[in-house]
């Protein structure tokens, strides 16, 4: 059994709103093996980005971890001081690539300078920037930027969206992290460019043996990228399975409904829809969060909360139908 890079136990996260705490994540249990790509999928407001930010401790001051723990390489990182977290984990062992590369690069510094900064801090301020330039150009070349010598001296606005995302990936992989959190890194990109970036990401993962938590709402993308998928709904993980198993034998009614309403070029029958809407945080129904929209719901769903249970080897689902 390979080592677990990340282990999350019974995590709950709350946001403060008008003096009250609203629970946005509840009963999150998740494990990530080394070198594994785990996709976290769900609709907007399901809490997938919040989970990513919680792991990297990027939550705003209004949020708090209400209960649970996060183990990274066997160490509880919830209790680390901010300084230790910054020195040891963030940007060193864990990195993040965000949705909009435009917001992640500083517009007034040259792209090369920003890569040099990362290299400079990685060398613990031992090497000077001139020595590092060659290394930086090498990195640009590696992520597939043509004419890297010239591009090194350009500003972010002179880069296209796809190239900026390549630079972000390059910067994330400089410190050779054990875990990369990718929050919808290809949402703003065109289809062909998206495929290029995901191809690059797959190759980098293989080379660096990095684990990835890939946050996405696009099931088509994660089908070709991830080893396992965790489906989130209204602040909970409702199903975790191997990628192919999830698509071929979905267990949870939400996963099933989601797959049925996904337009797919191989599908010609009428699309199904899920009646109702995703509940707002703080306004979750009693019992199973999905029961008001679920076509199979029965009495027990309205009263009790189903926990995530193993229904098959490595296939977890939170649904009372499995108990029947």
């Amino acid at each position, binding site marked *: 059994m390979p080592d677990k890079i990340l282990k999350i136990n019974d995590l709950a996260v709350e946001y403060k709103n008008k003096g009250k705490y609203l629970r946005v994540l509840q009963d999150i249990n998740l494990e990530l093996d080394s070198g594994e790509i785990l996709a976290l999928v769900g*609709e*907007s407001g399901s809490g997938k980005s919040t989970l990513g930010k919680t792991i990297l401790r990027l939550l705003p001051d209004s949020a708090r971890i209400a209960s649970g723990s996060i183990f990274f390489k066997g160490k509880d990182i919830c209790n680390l001081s901010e300084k230790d977290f910054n020195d040891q984990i963030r940007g060193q062992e864990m990195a993040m690539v965000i949705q909009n590369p435009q917001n992640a690069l500083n517009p007034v510094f040259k792209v090369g300078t920003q890569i040099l900064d990362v290299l400079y801090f990685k060398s613990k301020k031992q090497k000077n920037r001139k020595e590092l330039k060659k290394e930086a150009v090498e990195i640009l070349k590696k992520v597939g930027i043509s004419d890297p010598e010239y591009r090194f001296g350009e500003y972010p606005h002179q880069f*296209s969206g*796809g*190239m900026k995302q390549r630079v972000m990936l390059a910067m994330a992989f400089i410190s050779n992290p054990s875990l990369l959190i990718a929050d919808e890194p290809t949402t703003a990109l*065109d*289809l*062909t*460019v*998206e*495929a*290029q970036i*995901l*191809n690059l*990401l*797959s*190759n980098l993962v*293989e080379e660096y043996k990095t684990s990835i938590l890939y946050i996405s*709402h696009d*099931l*088509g993308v994660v*089908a*070709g*990228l991830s080893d396992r998928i965790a489906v989130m709904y209204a602040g909970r993980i409702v199903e975790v399975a191997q990628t*192919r198993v999830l*698509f071929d034998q979905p267990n949870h009614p939400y996963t099933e*409904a*989601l*797959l049925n*309403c*996904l*337009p*797919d*070029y*191989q*599908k010609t029958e*009428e*699309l*199904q*829809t*899920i009646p109702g*809407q*995703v509940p707002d945080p703080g306004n979750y129904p009693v019992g199973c969060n999905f029961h008001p929209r679920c076509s199979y719901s029965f009495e027990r769903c309205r009263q009790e909360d189903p926990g995530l249970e193993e229904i098959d080897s490595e296939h977890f689902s939170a649904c009372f139908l499995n108990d029947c």
Partner: protein
Amino acid sequence: MALVEVKNLKKYFVNNDGLLYKLANKGPIRVKAVDDVSFKIEKEDTLAVVGESGCGKTTVARSVLRLIEPTAGEILYKGRSINNFNKQELKTFRRDAQMILQDPRSSLNPRFIVEEIVSEPLYIHDQIEDDSNLLDRVWELLDLVGLSKRYSELFPHELSGGQARRVGIARALALQPEFIVCDEPTSGLDISIMSAVLNLMKKLQQKYQLTYLWISHNLHEVRYISNKVAVMYLGKIVEITDTDTIFNNSVHPYTEALFSALRGINDDWNYKEHEIIEGEVPSPINPPSGCSFHPRCKYSFDKCKKIEPELKAVESGHLAACHLYN
């Protein structure tokens, strides 16, 4: 007779403003957003226009409704040129042809409640004889798009993205149009809401015999909603044919590249081993010579660099612009 016919549409955006440009004396920058595009849309058809960002999809959509004036070319609506419409004819055209905009929120007036948003077109086109049953008419329209009566009193900021989109659709339907231009009507929506909007648009098309010009970059959606597809690259149509043909027997190398990036959830494959087209769309300010796709095309040969291919019939009803086929 086709409902909409576009003949050799060209739209160049010229930028020669600004003191620095004048001082540098470089001459105007010309962006060929749409360069010689022709197509027809028959009644009750859905023509989907697909392509990557910057290929001119939205410019085509806006030109077809005369929201921007074309540089050259002609757009015929029911056989008559919309660029020669007088004020009265244009108003009739504005009633018959509607648009659903890309951003559901910014296209709704934040100071209006839903009732005012949906009924505004009725006021503009003098379709209200009696104010007393106006609210009934609004409720009817909201019901059509699956919103209950209480939504008529809400402001746009109180609506979710999917609801805002439905209000946009209700507004477009208020005047019982024949032709609707849909500019990425499902972008930014969650999967479950997207499927609801797609089903709704399909149902409305059957009910009111609507004709759609559907701009999209989601090919799965295009497969579901359209029966004709035009693929655009750098301001030109490179291939246009039936949806079935484009998904199964496309001929243009760009179509092939674009559709090879398309994967369904039932395909067994991964990004690691997948062959992917290299490069990105070049700038329309300085497009490549000859065929604008040749720098990225794996089949390109000498002729492609020099001569621009014309859009020609490969077989009946299937046009492609590629030297490999003519």
